[in-house]
């Protein structure tokens, strides 16, 4: 394991210290590093809190700030945060209008946020994201994973909360944004959880893991590495098939790197995906290309497609000022 660290036990706190220090104009860190939150809160606004295992940076801490999240709770690497973190965050950012948890659909995250919601004093609702079409739900009862599409949900919820939408309306909007979103990923290499010290899985020189999750957990199937166009084709097909009849019109596309793939390849994949989507009648009207929802140093990428309507487009375009996304301000 080759990492720029001092000790596996202190990675998280040292990294968070650097993170909030680099962004001290907009962020502060909570006691015992339980959460990061916006430095200036907007009174009367519903509090948006997300969180999850670390190692997916910039998700979620990088999305805290004006027009997006109020707080994010970082767990240990690839491990859900604990209920005391969400409780402390909620206490710090709730301004009386209630709290919305945005939770990626992993049992660990779901159960920990659920316990926090049970223990919380204020009103709490939860939006679960489950955009990963790689998981063929029918066969299993855990459901789809929440992956890179979570970024879109957090962005539009942030914009709407800033506009003053109430808790129930935000919950409905979040569910709607999630329902309009599908993702699919592929890994070319594994990643190494620092505390484990060895790669989570082993891929042969000529292999890729199709349908990988964002924790280096294995995917749909292990197959020979093929060309960018063929990979894009499989992703686009999986997503479009899952949308079924709705797969048409304007879309937001996130071509997301998992951490170890150069930007050059991500733009190349975006190019391939955009053409394939176009042939199916899906026009990319908003997009993002880069490392946004990562799996440490894993090589590979995911494609996320959200079918847009005027409201979602307007909320996506709304001003945002966070460490990782910034425009209009």
């Amino acid at each position: 394991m080759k990492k720029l660290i001092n000790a596996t036990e202190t990675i998280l706190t040292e990294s968070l210290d650097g993170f909030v220090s680099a962004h001290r104009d907009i962020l502060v860190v909570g006691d015992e590093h339980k959460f990061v939150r916006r430095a200036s809160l907007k009174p009367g606004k519903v509090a948006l809190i997300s969180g999850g295992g670390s190692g997916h940076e910039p998700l979620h801490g990088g999305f805290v700030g004006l027009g997006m999240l109020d707080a994010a709770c970082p767990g240990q690497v690839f491990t859900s945060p604990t209920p005391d973190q969400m409780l402390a965050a909620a206490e710090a950012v709730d301004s009386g209008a209630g709290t919305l948890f945005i939770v990626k659909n992993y049992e660990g995250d779901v159960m920990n946020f659920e316990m926090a919601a049970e223990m919380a004093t204020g009103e709490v609702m939860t939006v679960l994201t489950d955009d990963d079409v790689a998981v063929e739900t029918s066969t299993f009862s855990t459901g789809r994973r929440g992956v890179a599409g979570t970024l879109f949900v957090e962005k539009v919820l942030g914009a709407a909360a800033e506009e003053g939408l109430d808790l129930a309306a935000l919950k409905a909007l979040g569910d709607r944004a999630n329902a309009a979103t599908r993702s699919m990923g592929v890994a070319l290499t594994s990643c190494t959880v620092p505390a484990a010290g060895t790669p989570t899985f082993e891929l042969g020189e000529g292999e890729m893991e199709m349908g990988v999750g964002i924790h280096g957990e294995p995917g749909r199937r292990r197959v020979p590495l093929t060309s960018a166009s063929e990979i894009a084709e499989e992703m686009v097909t999986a997503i479009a098939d899952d949308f079924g009849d709705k797969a048409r019109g304007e879309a937001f596309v996130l071509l997301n790197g998992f951490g170890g793939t150069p930007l050059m390849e991500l733009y190349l994949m975006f190019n391939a995906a955009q053409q394939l989507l176009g042939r199916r009648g899906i026009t990319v009207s908003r997009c993002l290309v880069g490392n946004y929802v990562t799996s440490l140093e894993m090589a590979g990428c995911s494609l996320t497609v959200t079918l847009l309507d005027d409201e979602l487009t307007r909320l996506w375009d709304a001003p945002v000022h966070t460490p990782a996304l910034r425009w209009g301000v």
Partner: protein
Amino acid sequence: MLDDAASRRDLIKAVAQEVIDHAEELTALDQAIGDGDHGVNMKRGAEAVLADIDNLAEKTLPEGLKAIGMALVMKVGGASGPLYGTFFMTLGKSLPEEPAPADTVAAFEAAFQAVMARGKSHPGQKTMLDVLAPALECLQADPSASAALCTKVAEAAEATIPMLAEKGRASFLGERSIGHMDPGARSSALIITTVCKTLGAAGK
């Protein structure tokens, strides 16, 4: 049984140490069909418990168990944190201060039910429940059959190998989850076995 702080301390110490000693094995199991953190998670919880061991041992058995459960919830994270946390908290809530064998069985059953409720899961899905369920059966048959219980949970953990995961991260693997032991099943077996052995060695 466990009616003084010293014996409670010994038990807590033995279980926590066993988990810590097997952290790498548990992580390796989780790397095969999960995300490679189960050992790290459980070790973090065990260390948190050890750090507070004097305080925990001083408490009554029910209170001590509740406190252990809460410590696990707040320290472990992941799926195993809420599940083991719920298990121990419920155990504590359900046990009287000086439990008879039947009380132990009832409390175990309550804790088992609480884990199923928290996990929205049931035995047969390749999880820790596949060790907890046969353990409960064994206790129900004979609350004092400590050796039988140890054999049972070891077999039950092994028996998760050919199972298809339907809960937890391993479920994303589908058919590929077959052929690997469930990490949570293994940690449950370790904990139960250590409890039996420690109580047995103490002649209790």
